């Protein structure tokens, strides 16, 4: 019951945050080539659009109507050249804070940075395999085997996708133009730095 209400809340609010869905065609236009099954690529693009991947993996900029994803940097993750001061600590009921780009988040887990999802071989998903991507979505672990993926990445929700849908997502992401952007490593919370 509780979970159902939350899901409804997330969906409703997700629909309210419309800038990314209005500009998904721009995302698709960045595809370097349409190798593979066109239906699969379309399905992947559709999933990226409705699941709000751009909300965290595309840096926000201030547009005429407020913050919006900068689709010239679609899905490139937290910008390596974006200077951040140390995150503010919580208190008085605050639990987490987010960067102006909406690609970096500070909370009880430390500081997390949205990954570069373009297929750049050194800084993105260029060396990833489809199996690794599926395992990552299913296990919530980096590369399917490594450290825990950090909030606010909703991998638990994505883990309920079918394998076919995850494959479509991967195919679409791999069709994007590779963009070199080395996202910082996460920063552990002070109490677990050892």
């Amino acid at each position, binding site marked *: 019951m509780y979970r159902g209400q939350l899901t409804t809340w997330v969906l409703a609010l997700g629909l*309210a*945050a419309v800038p990314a869905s209005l500009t998904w065609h721009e995302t698709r236009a960045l595809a370097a080539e349409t190798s593979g099954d066109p239906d699969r690529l379309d399905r992947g693009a559709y999933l990226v659009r409705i699941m709000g991947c751009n*909300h965290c993996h595309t840096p926000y900029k201030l547009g005429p109507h407020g913050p919006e994803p900068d689709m010239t940097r679609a899905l490139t993750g937290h910008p390596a050249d974006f200077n951040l001061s140390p995150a503010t600590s919580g208190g008085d009921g605050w639990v987490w804070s987010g960067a102006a780009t909406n690609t970096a988040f500070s909370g009880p887990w*430390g500081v997390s940075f949205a990954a570069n999802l373009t297929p750049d071989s050194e800084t993105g998903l260029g060396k*990833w395999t489809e199996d690794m991507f599926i395992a990552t979505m*299913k296990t919530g*672990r*980096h590369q399917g085997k490594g450290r825990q993926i950090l909030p606010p990445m909703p991998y638990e929700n994505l883990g309920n996708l079918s394998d076919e849908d995850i494959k479509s997502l991967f195919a679409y992401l791999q069709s994007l133009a590779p963009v070199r952007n080395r996202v910082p490593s996460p920063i552990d919370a002070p109490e677990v730095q050892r």
Partner: protein
Amino acid sequence: MRLRFATTALAAVLVAVVVSQQVSRAAAAAGAALDPEPLPQHLTETGLYASDSGSVVAPGVRQFLPQYPLWSDGMTKRRWIFLPKGTSINAASELAWQFPVGTKFWKEFRLNGRRIETRLSWKASATQWVMASYVWNEDGTDAVLAPAEGVNGVAEIAPGRRHSIPSRSDCSACHGTISMGPLGFNALQLSNDRDPNAIHGDPLGEGTLTLADLITENLLSPAPTHFIANPPRIRTSNPATRSVLGYLTANCMMCHSGGSDGTPLGPALAMGELLQDADAAARNLVGRPSSWQVPAAAEGHSVVVHPGSPDLSALFVRLRSRAPSSQMPPLGTVIRDQQAVDAIERWISSMR
């Protein structure tokens, strides 16, 4: 006004996502590894013991002891295998055995003499290993199936650090579910040419199954009989290289193997090379670029092993760390293996 709305809506979405993570974590973990049939609720029903006593091992269940044990935060472990009667292990690939359907492995974890958990790996079909853990009660009389999402903090293993029962999805993160299965049962780990300097290595006890036993009892097919006269070993004249690489085979190669079940990212070790020329395998780690930034290294100039400088070596820094974002191995341990850290520090320091 519109700016305020957009910002508020975005923040609300993020908060909802963070909160919903906690709610759905268990459901996702449970859904990640579906079992072909209900697992027994009690360890005594899995075939490990001869009776309900939970102490006498059943006939046909054999104890084994890998020469290079996986670090499990200092817990003591015992391991057993059961092969269905009349079956044998397919050893057509001498270094990648395939087990018959019905094979079972168990691994018992003890802390200060008390049984904490016993894990089961069961080859339930030709294409699936099923993995689960059974949690012992305080007085050690019964072990009950752990939930699929695992159990956090079942026992304190050091001040402020607690041992957790892994989720089944974490089991499959290391073991896979299709082809990998057990990790500590192979030709090198069971070799009769035991490494006297193996880190945390224990002497073979009476009746412990070895590679030679498997060959002579026709439990490997085809039988790699040349391993009787020439048992596999990490081939190097340097005892430190042998023990360090042995440690890495047990603690790192489940991912860093470069094989179909391993990640293509990061450094990789190949069993065949270790058994042929371990010095060459070690050289492959030296100066190899690391995508993980070593804190003491210049930006973009991190390497896996920097000769003479452990603190500039990603392998050493990450093995020493127990911070979640950097520690290696990334799961299954919350306490540094100081004996291994010391050995690897000496090994890298000695390199020129």
